[in-house]
């Protein structure tokens, strides 16, 4: 159960990191994206933004994959390691069994 919770927690944390990188990538891409003549010159700063967008996109993709793997791992761990439930029927009561020279009385309790 501890392993399961750890995996699920790691999945959420890594997923949040992926969201951070995703938003960072989107912000950087938005800063240089345009659909018309901008009137601005393409400078090394713009180039850096493109590289940042690409780098964060790669990190976000990796984080989403890793986070998803952790969550799936948590689910599989839960499925395959949960304790199996068994039902045992214990008949209680008093039994009298004849034996040689007499009889044996047996009392059974369930606790």
């Amino acid at each position, binding site marked *: 159960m501890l392993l399961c919770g750890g995996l699920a927690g790691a999945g959420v944390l890594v997923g949040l990191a992926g969201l951070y990188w995703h938003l960072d990538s*989107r912000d950087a*891409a938005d800063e*240089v*994206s*345009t*659909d018309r003549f*901008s009137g601005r*010159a*393409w*400078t090394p700063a713009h180039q850096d933004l493109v590289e940042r967008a690409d780098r964060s996109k790669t990190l976000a993709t990796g984080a989403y994959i890793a986070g998803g793997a952790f969550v799936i791992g948590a689910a599989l761990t839960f499925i395959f390691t949960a304790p199996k439930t068994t039902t045992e029927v214990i008949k209680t009561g008093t039994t009298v069994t004849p034996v040689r020279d007499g009889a044996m009385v047996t009392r059974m309790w369930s606790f």
Partner: protein
Amino acid sequence: MRLVIACLFLAACTPEIPPGSYLCGPEQLCPEGQSCNGPDNVCVVTSSAMPFACETDLDPPGDDAPATAQPLGTLDCVSPLRVTKGCMSAGDVADWYQFDVPANCVTVQVEATLAFPIAYESLDLQLSTNLGPGSVVEGTCPPSRSPDEGEAHRCFEMTVTPGTRYALGVVPDGTGDCDRACAFNRYRLSMQLATP
């Protein structure tokens, strides 16, 4: 609906930079897959980029020294702004422009501004007195277009002597020329005489 909004919020991680949306940066810098178009300094698809070329009338030969400078004409002590467009082709060492300060002026200063695209070689302004050797002159430019808008500026103002012949030189400063691969540029030289 929330899902759609969430998708829009998260989407667009790849920059969208269509050809023709940016001017060329320093040393013809353009987005990946694009190149600098010589005629207008705009980043376009590499296959459609035209080479830089000077128009003939903007690059007259023989103006490489103060003594053989192109005349800017007669100026008054307080002259209107005179704007000259020019072009430095590859290998051009300088473009010089000559002017005379009228002898009847009391105190007069020359004010000049040189503007040129940052995409090609960087230029300096030089001043020559009595057709002697030029020296670099530079002052602070008033707030105007920034390099972010694809242009660089050189400005200066200097008190000059009435009755003297001067020449303004546009000279490459040896930087921003793509290791000589873009050792050319076009420019706009504005000058006037004014009272200090």
